[in-house]
């Protein structure tokens, strides 16, 4: 069988090597090669979407063979309904980001090489079904990310890059311990995620830590959860996010918010849920509370921001809270909503970051209100109508206006959570987030786009063809999925149904 997932994963790596071999003085050649290379996984992604069997919860397009025999480590790739939306999101956003990065002028070769390397890491994370393999891809992703933020970022790039790296590494090493622990506490010893998920292996086992007998499965759960929560990011592990998102170059912010954050929630659904169902139920309330905190905290922080990009960054914190709430509800609607929200947030935030990048390229700042209190942008709708239109779509999708994608997923999340009697109070509190979301986004829209035109920006140019081109596919997705979400919901239905049987 054609190893489609491996090809999708390693084509960018190959592309990276090609790009490194290209001459240094021809940046356009490098850019076009990068476009060409990322187009291949995108095309294969379309093929995956078309030939994916929606009726089964089992793994598809599986590639499995021994990698490191003494430890029973396998090269095991495959996708199910949980991973395919993420895979599609990854290939689409990477392709668009490569085009959106046209404005990078320094170190073009290095930039695109790192970007392609990043795609390999992301693809690998979503396809790996062996914990060891997953971990390798998970960490590989950090390396290009560090350089992308640290070299091509904004003023505080060095601090942002190291903060991102340290936070994520802290989470990863806990994951490493859990990974090794799972290997030794499973019978037979294995890293295979599907085998680990069979038959509640870690229930009832204990381990001694600092003189206390502690249940292994809960320790594993906590270790994994912290690792993933840092990536989501769940409050209080979110402090790296505003730095990384704001300092990173536009395209990298898009990847960070669009794909990397989803790895956290994806990881929880892929590992914590099926492998440690008892501990997951034990921690449900905790996750729900954290989700609610994320929604509200993120929204309040976003409201206070003067920097457009920081506002979008905090809105991500808020929106990932919905995912947490949906996951913690343990209802079909809730979990479906959560995964759909992962996808929808990927598209709408990507749009927002791209749009912020567009204005930053022209005005070289992003202030809604300048730090000295004077007015930043204002009334620019009059000079950049196309830009304003697309911004409005992204914004309304993000705040959950019916008819656009965000609405469906948020509605499903709250519907699901409310139907679980344990969480009704939380849902009532959490739904305030929708109101707050509307508030900060509309307020921003009003201050930046509406009202009298700030004369300073009367010569602002509207979006060019390349920029519109990068946003159009996302725009289409946001509108189509807002009206008819079934193309994505169909993909994951069976998998989530099977996942939830563990908790009924």
């Amino acid at each position, binding site marked *: 069988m054609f190893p489609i997932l491996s090809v999708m994963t390693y084509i960018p790596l190959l592309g990276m090597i090609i790009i490194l071999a290209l001459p240094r003085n021809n940046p356009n050649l490098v850019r076009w090669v990068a476009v060409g290379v990322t187009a291949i996984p995108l095309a294969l992604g379309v093929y995956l979407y078309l030939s994916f069997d929606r009726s089964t919860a089992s793994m598809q397009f599986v590639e499995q063979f021994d*990698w*490191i*025999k*003494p430890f029973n480590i396998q090269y095991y790739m495959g996708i199910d309904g949980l991973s395919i939306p993420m895979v599609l999101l990854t290939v689409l956003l990477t392709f668009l980001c490569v085009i959106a990065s046209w404005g990078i002028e320094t*170190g073009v070769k290095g930039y695109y090489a790192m970007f392609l390397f990043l795609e390999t890491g992301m693809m690998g994370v979503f396809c790996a079904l062996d914990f060891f393999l997953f*971990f*390798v891809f*998970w*960490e*590989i992703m*950090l*390396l290009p990310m*560090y*350089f992308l933020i*640290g*070299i091509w970022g904004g003023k505080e*790039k*060095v601090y942002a*890059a*190291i903060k991102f*790296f*340290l936070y994520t*590494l*802290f989470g990863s*090493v*806990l994951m*490493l*311990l859990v990974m*090794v*622990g799972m*290997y*030794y506490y499973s019978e037979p010893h294995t890293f295979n995620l599907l085998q680990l998920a069979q038959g509640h292996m870690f229930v009832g086992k204990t*381990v*001694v*830590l*600092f003189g206390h007998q502690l249940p292994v499965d809960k320790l594993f759960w906590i270790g994994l959860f912290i690792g993933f929560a840092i990536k989501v990011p769940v409050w209080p592990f979110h402090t790296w996010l505003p730095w990384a998102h704001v300092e990173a170059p536009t395209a990298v912010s898009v990847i960070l918010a669009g794909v990397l954050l989803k790895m956290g929630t994806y990881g929880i659904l892929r590992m914590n849920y099926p492998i440690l169902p008892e501990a997951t139920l034990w921690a449900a309330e905790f996750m729900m509370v954290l989700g609610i905190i994320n929604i509200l905290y993120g929204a309040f922080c976003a409201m206070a921001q003067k920097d457009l990009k920081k506002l979008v960054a905090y809105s991500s914190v808020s929106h990932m809270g919905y995912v947490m709430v949906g996951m913690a509800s343990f209802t079909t609607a809730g979990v479906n909503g959560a995964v759909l929200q992962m996808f929808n947030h990927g598209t709408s935030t990507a749009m927002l970051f791209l749009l912020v990048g567009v204005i930053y390229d022209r005005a070289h700042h992003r202030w809604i209100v300048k730090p000295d209190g004077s007015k930043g942008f204002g009334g620019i709708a009059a000079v950049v109508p196309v830009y304003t239109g697309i911004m409005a779509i992204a914004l309304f999708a993000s705040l959950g206006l019916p008819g656009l994608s965000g609405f469906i997923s948020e509605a499903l999340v709250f519907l699901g959570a409310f139907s679980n009697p344990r969480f009704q109070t939380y849902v009532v509190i959490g739904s305030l987030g929708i109101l707050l979301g509307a508030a900060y986004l509309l307020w921003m829209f009003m201050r930046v786009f509406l009202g009298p035109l700030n004369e300073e920006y009367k010569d602002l140019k509207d979006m060019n063809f390349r920029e519109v081109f990068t946003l159009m596919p996302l725009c289409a997705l946001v509108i189509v999925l807002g009206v008819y979400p079934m193309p994505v919901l169909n993909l994951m239905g069976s998998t989530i149904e099977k996942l939830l049987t563990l908790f009924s």
Partner: protein
Amino acid sequence: MGETLHNVMLLAPEVCITLFLCLLFIVDGLFPSLRSNRFPMILTVVACIASMILTAKVGKTPAAYFGGMVVNDGFTTFFRYLFFFTAAVSSYVAFGSKEVEAKSRIEFSLLLLCVTVGMSLMASASNLLVLYMGIEMVSIISFVMAGFRRDNLRSNEASFKYLVFGGVASALMIYGFSLIYGLTGSLNYSQIAASLIAAQGNVGLITWLALVLIYSGLAYKISAFPMHFWAPDVYEGAPTPITAFFSVGPKAAGFAALLRILLTVFAVKTGDGNWKAVEGLSLTSIIAVISAATMIVGNLSALGQTNVKRILAYSSIAHVGYMLMGLVTLDRSGITAIIFYLIAYCAMNIGAFWVVGVVSNIRGREDLEAFRGIGWSMPVLGTCMAIFIFSLTGIPMFSGFIGKFLIFGSVIKSGGFLWLALLGVLNSVVSLYYYVKILKSMWLDKPETEESLRLPFYHAVGLVGLAIPTIVLGLYFTPILEFAEKTLATLL
């Protein structure tokens, strides 16, 4: 006579090195003009390769020889390979460096080969006196090597510091040996072990004292807590190629001696191929504490450093801490992990010091500022350094990660020292901070002036040659793992 000849045959790799040593002397006397070109280096590399081939030939069956003074088993074989490889690479590094002057190259080669024989002896000794001889041979020549740049104050300081510390450590250790001799009436490992077992848990304070004293001597060699203080100063002062050698060769030799003493004298092999401490000596908790202290001291001290050589010196202390973790459980998987770690560490650490050496040759100093933007002017150098640094941090895809994975695995497997594993991973997060400072200088900071630097082909070949195994071992390590297990299985 036949017996002696057979014994000498088993010592063939060391004999071979010694013969090459003599050859160097003679050639230098006859053709003084050869000393300043690459000839001594070529001869050193040839000597090392020849000895590796001989090692492969003599290492077939494990045996003790010279009346049980030295043993030749899989363990010896492994360390011989490691030492000869390290020596060959170090001489290659040194001959591309300005820090080893052309006029004294022959001395460098002579000293290096001498140390190599000493290290080899340390790994194969099964008698405390032979071990002491080996250690002294390594130490005394190391003092000279540390002070190789006679006109450089730092180098002199390094040499002197090394000497003073070494003297104290040796004195402590030999006192420990004498106590052991007084207690058991023997200097031979297996006989000491026999009398310790015969004591049946009746272990007095003196035995503990002897153990502590012997540990001090060996801890000095591997630069473990609390005998690590010399390392940063010596590493900083010595010429960089020699530092690269110090941080791997003598350290690995110290590990060889430590492992052999611990496993054959103070522990007994159990039926399932693991070990357990001799009755009455609860070694494991002590090793755990030492390991924890070593990595904490190494990592925390490295945080504030601005000299890259010092950063790497402290990092090499921290790595000793990680490696000692593998000893805590005294089981096969842990020791295998140490052996793997030594292999990985050898490539990545020499590589990292090598890069420092190249930069220091260009800029004349080794602080972080000297590395500014150098990745952009020499991408191959910068990429190799990134690989070594990420590997040292323990990030997947690189061999350092596999080393840590195996080490942490062995600790978690035993179930008893979870806190140590937790401390270990937290330490590797801390270590990221100072490692990345180097990469930040190299890549994130822009160079002040546009300068066109070219990495000499000579160095590019070597660095890539070390970077490749660092990646390959991170992705596929089954053969090395099997080799390490085989090594241990034949430990006498």
